[in-house]
C-alpha cells in the first residue's frame, strides 16, 4: 500500500539531515509502527508522507503510484492524519459539527451528504455533543472527534502521530480499542508513530525502530514481544521499556 524509498529530509540547504535514507513498506490493511525517542525523526517521516512537508528527497509510493512532492487534492481523500495533541488539533472557536463538515467543504463536496449523528456514533460519541466547542469536551472526546474528522473523507490510510500520548491511561485504552475496531471494520492501513513500545506492540504487526534519523531495525511484532531484536539501540530501548512491564 505504502512504499517509502530512501527518504531524506533536511531543514534548510546544507543542514544535517533530520531523516536519512529511510525505507520501509506497509501492506494494505495492516498497522505499521515507527518507534523512537524524541528527535529521532519519526514525526518528520510522517509529515513528509502526509504532504505537510514538501521538501524531501527520495520516493514515496501510494498504491504503486509515485507521489509528487506537492500533493494533489484527491490525495487527501486517501490519506489522513490524527495529531498528537487533542487540545491543539481542533479549532478552538468552531463547533464540533462545523469542524466535521470542514473536510467536505474543502473538497467541494455537499456538506449535507453525510449523516453527522452517525459519524459521531461511529467513534463512540453522543450526537448531542455536535454543537459543543472543543474546550467543552474532555481530552478523550476531543481525540475521538479528531479521529472522526480524519475519517470524514473515507481515506484508505490513517497516519497516527502519537495519538494517545497526551491522554490518561484509562482513556488511552478506549482510544486504542476504537482505533483497532475502525481498522478491522473499514480495512484501513495505519502508520503509527510513537515513543511507547507497549502501544506499538499492542497495535501494530510490524515495527521499525529509529535513532537519529535512521531506521536501525525492522521487525515483526512477534519478534519484538519475544525480545528478539539485534541492534544494540533496539535492545536498550526494549530493556528500558520493559522495566515498565508487569513485575
Amino acid at each position, binding site marked *: 500500500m505504502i512504499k517509502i524509498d530512501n527518504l531524506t529530509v533536511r531543514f534548510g540547504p546544507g543542514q544535517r539531515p533530520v531523516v536519512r535514507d529511510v525505507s520501509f513498506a506497509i501492506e494494505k490493511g495492516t498497522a505499521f509502527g515507527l518507534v523512537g525517542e524524541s528527535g529521532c525523526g519519526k514525526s518528520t517521516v510522517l509529515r513528509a508522507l502526509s504532504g505537510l512537508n514538501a521538501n524531501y528527497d527520495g520516493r514515496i509510493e501510494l498504491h504503486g503510484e509515485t507521489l509528487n512532492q506537492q500533493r494533489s487534492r484527491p490525495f487527501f481523500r486517501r490519506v489522513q492524519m490524527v*495529531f498528537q495533541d487533542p487540545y491543539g488539533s481542533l479549532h478552538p472557536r468552531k463547533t464540533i459539527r462545523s469542524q466535521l463538515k470542514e473536510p467536505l467543504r474543502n473538497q467541494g463536496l455537499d456538506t449535507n451528504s453525510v449523516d453527522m449523528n452517525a459519524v459521531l456514533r461511529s467513534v463512540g460519541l453522543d450526537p*448531542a455533543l455536535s*454543537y459543543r466547542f472543543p474546550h*467543552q469536551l474532555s481530552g478523550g472526546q476531543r481525540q475521538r472527534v479528531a479521529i472522526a474528522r480524519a475519517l470524514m473523507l473515507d481515506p484508505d490510510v490513517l497516519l497516527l502521530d502519537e495519538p494517545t500520548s497526551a491522554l490518561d491511561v484509562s482513556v488511552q485504552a478506549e482510544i486504542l480499542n476504537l482505533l483497532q475496531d475502525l481498522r478491522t471494520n473499514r480495512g484501513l492501513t495505519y502508520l503509527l508513530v510513537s515513543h511507547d513500545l507497549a502501544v506499538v506492540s499492542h497495535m501494530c504487526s510490524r515495527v521499525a525502530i529509529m535513532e537519529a534519523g535512521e531506521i536501525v531495525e525492522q521487525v515483526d511484532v512477534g519478534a519484538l514481544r519475544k525480545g528478539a531484536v539485534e541492534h544494540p539501540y533496539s535492545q536498550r530501548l526494549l530493556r528500558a521499556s520493559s522495566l515498565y512491564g508487569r513485575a
Partner: protein
Amino acid sequence: MTISSEHADSVNTGGLRNWLLAPEPRGWFQSSAQQIHQGWRKFSLHPLGLAGLAIIVVLIVVALAAPLLTSYDPIVQDMAGRLAPPSASHWLGTDNFGRDVFSRVIYGARTTLYIIMLVTVIVAPLGLLIGTVSGYFGGIVDEVLMRVTDIFLSFPGLVLALGFAAALGPGITNAIIAISLTAWPPIARLARAETLSLRKADYIAAVRLQGATSIAIITRHILPMCIPSVIVRVTLNMAGIIITAAGLGFLGLGAQPPWPEWGSMAASGREFMLDSPWVIAAPGIAIALVSLAFNLVGDALRDVLDPRGSE
C-alpha cells in the same frame, strides 16, 4: 446532574437561563448564544469595565436622542446671552457665540460617534487583511507588506494625520481618512503576530490536509482567531483616536464650524478659559470621560477575549 439552586423568578427567565446553561446545545444559534452569555458573565466580573461600558452606552443614547434631550439648537447664535455661566436655563452655560454648551456637547457626541465608527470600520478590516496575509504567506509578500506598514508606523500619529488633513483639506471626512491611515499599522502588526503563531497549530495543519486553499484557511480559520485580540486593541486605541480627532478639531482640521465637535469647541474655549471656564471644561471633560471609558472596557475585554494565562 443536579440543577443549580438559582431561583427562577418566573417560568420565562427560568427557561431562558436553562437554555443558556444547557450542557448540550441543540443548534448553532443556541451554541453561539451560550458563548456570548459566558463572555458576558466574565465581563461583568469587572466593575470598572462595566462602568466604562455604561459611559459608552450613555454616549450612544445621548448621541441618538440629542433632539429629545435639549430644545436649544446647537448652531443658532445669541450674542446677547454670550458667555453666560451655568444656570437653570443653560445647564452648562453658553459659549462665546451664545450657543448652549450643553446642547453642543450632546450634538458633539454624534460627531465623536461618527468618527469612531468610521475609523473602526476602515482600520480593523484593513489591518486584519494585511496582517493575516502577510503572516500566512511569509516570504516576499510579508517583506513588502511589512515595510509599507513600517513606513506608516514611523510617523507620529498626530503629525501624520495633520499632514494628510492639510493635504486633503479640512473637513470631517478627510479627518477620518487621515486618522485611519495612521491607526491601521498596529492592527496589522498584531494580526501578523497572531497569524505567525497560529499557522503552526495542528488544527491549521489538519485543514491543509483536507485540501483547503490558502484563502479559505486565512478567512475561515485564521481570521476568527485574530478577531478577539484585534477587538481589544481597537478598543484600547479608541482613546487615542478620539484624542487625535479632537486634536485635529482643535487645529481646525476636523469638523468645520459651526458644527459642534468637542475638539474645536475646546479650541474656541481657550481664549475664555480664565473667565468662562465652562466653555472649554465641558468638551474637555467629555473627551476625557469617553477616552477613559474605552480604556476601561478594553482592559476588561482583554481579560474576557484574550486571556493569555488563564487556561
